[in-house]
């Protein structure tokens, strides 16, 4: 078999890239080792209940009549009408530290007034930072790497305000511990604080279904249970991929969304460099409850909970970090008349976790691993209480995933969600014709990974062939 481009991985970035290339008559094959699409952002069912993996919220919220925003541009490139997502905005989110809380909504003026009330001495600095961010071209692929905290400290002198601003941006989009590249900071700042959170009706399924439908319309093909086991090169250029240790598919280009170290691992040639896997992984407890959070005293959509003066975004020396969490209440988006599409309460508590320690537990025994998952669940109930959730609910169902779950389903080394700490911003690798898209190109999250798939397909395949 011979195609123009093999795309490795049917996650958000691979699907978006596949649509772009198929739209322009490139023969594309997406190969996916799993049996379903979505990658880090997928879904599953237990009994009659449906669960989302990934998606707490879609960043880069747009109103139906907004123009020229990043999400509009992306969907325009894929020719998917924005209205099909049926986006509902968040109610509000909360950054909760021991001595201070900051609320934000999809309207930046709300955050501005919070900061001028709670950090009056910092508001001028914050306004200047906002200006700097608005004028910064964060997606320029030639930007140099600059540490974001150094830049932000030039504008904001209050240490705890710096920590509070970074908290949501780090946990929703940094492969690095405790800091991030300034371009990535600006991407995250705009997508979260300036544009905000929303949820498509039906959750992750809606996004995936829309992408799959579009891929079908333009004739793109996906092969499931097809794991790439070798990338075959000839004279330093990609020539074919090997599937499941046997079948060979010849191709001119490969776009790989499986991560940079993971891609280098299957390369047949001696790699000229070894990208380092990231350190950050997560556990998540999903609780299905008889009562909805609103009836238990919580109307926030997302709470960024941190119980220390500073925010430690780093690999914990314990199975998971109990002192910080992202708590998502999907019932609490701003639905018309509070009519959400869940029949029960859904509470999701995500903690930073240590992959190696979880893997050790698993090696000891399955029972042992299960017992440790119970600890995560018990802790999640305390964190929910600390976020203001009243007792008096019963848990009808629960599910807990760990870093080893992420590794098993997505193949990311170390169970990382944000991939390697070595990104390849322009998508190139030492091998001609082999390009990286998605997580390790460096645009993160759901919207980021679609942007990555689209821009790498444009830059390396479409533009490459039109000139």
């Amino acid at each position, binding site marked *: 078999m011979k195609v123009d481009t093999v795309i490795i991985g049917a996650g958000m970035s691979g699907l978006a890239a596949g649509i772009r290339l198929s*739209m322009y008559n490139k023969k594309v094959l997406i190969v996916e080792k799993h049996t379903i699409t979505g990658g880090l952002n997928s879904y599953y069912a237990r009994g009659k209940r449906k669960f989302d993996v990934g998606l707490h919220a879609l960043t880069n919220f747009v109103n139906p009549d907004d*123009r020229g925003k990043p999400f*509009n541009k992306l969907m*325009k490139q894929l*020719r998917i009408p924005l209205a099909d997502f049926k986006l509902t905005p968040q109610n509000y989110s909360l950054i909760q530290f021991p001595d201070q809380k900051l609320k934000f909504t999809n309207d930046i003026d709300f955050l501005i007034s919070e900061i001028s009330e709670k950090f009056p001495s910092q508001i001028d600095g914050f306004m200047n930072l906002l200006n700097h961010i608005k004028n910064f071209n964060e997606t320029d692929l030639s930007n140099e790497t600059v540490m974001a905290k150094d830049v932000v400290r030039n504008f904001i002198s209050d240490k705890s305000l710096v920590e509070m601003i970074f908290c949501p941006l780090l946990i929703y989009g940094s492969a690095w511990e405790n800091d991030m590249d300034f371009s990535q900071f600006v991407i995250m700042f705009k997508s979260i604080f300036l544009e905000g959170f929303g949820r498509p009706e039906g959750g992750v399924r809606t996004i995936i279904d829309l992408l799959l439908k579009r891929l079908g319309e333009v004739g793109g093909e996906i092969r499931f249970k097809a794991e790439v086991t070798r990338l075959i090169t000839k004279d330093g250029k990609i020539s074919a991929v090997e599937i499941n240790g046997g079948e060979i598919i010849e191709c001119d280009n490969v776009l790989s969304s499986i991560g940079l170290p993971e891609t280098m691992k299957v390369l047949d040639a001696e790699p000229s460099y070894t990208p380092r896997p990231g350190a950050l992984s997560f556990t998540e407890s999903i609780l299905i409850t008889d009562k909805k959070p609103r009836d238990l005293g919580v109307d926030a959509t997302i709470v960024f909970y941190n119980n220390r003066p500073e925010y430690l975004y780093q690999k914990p020396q314990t199975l998971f970090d109990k002192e910080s969490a992202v708590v998502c209440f999907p019932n609490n988006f701003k639905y018309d008349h509070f009519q959400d599409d869940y029949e029960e309460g859904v509470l999701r508590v995500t903690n930073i976790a240590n992959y190696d320690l979880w893997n050790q537990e698993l090696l000891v025994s399955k029972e042992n691993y299960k017992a440790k998952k119970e600890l995560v669940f018990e802790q999640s109930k305390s964190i929910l209480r600390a976020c203001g959730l009243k007792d008096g609910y019963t848990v009808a169902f629960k599910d807990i995933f760990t870093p080893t779950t992420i590794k098993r389903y997505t193949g990311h080394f170390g169970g990382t969600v944000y991939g390697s700490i070595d990104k390849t911003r322009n998508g190139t690798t030492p091998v001609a014709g082999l390009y990286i898209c998605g997580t390790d190109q460096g645009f993160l999250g759901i919207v980021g990974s679609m942007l990555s798939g689209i821009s790498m397909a*444009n830059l390396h395949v479409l*533009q490459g062939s*039109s000139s």
Partner: protein
Amino acid sequence: MLSNEEVRAKVLDIIADIALDDDVSSIKDEVALRDQLDLDSMDFLDIVMELKKRHKIEVPQEDYTKLASMKSCVEYLAPKFNA
């Protein structure tokens, strides 16, 4: 032999599909497309790709600037449509 009017109509069809949210019926031929419509460099790539897909017309990268306005599009593309 396509007239300039017909070439213009074919280009307009393409732009209408790309600038989904814009009203393309009032485009001024002399004014840069970028200044009238919500188009960025990614969208100009799409115009080039659509020309190739629908009409087998190749626009090399160094000529992208020729697509700046409707007027320059027609001047540049008419000979290619009629080649």
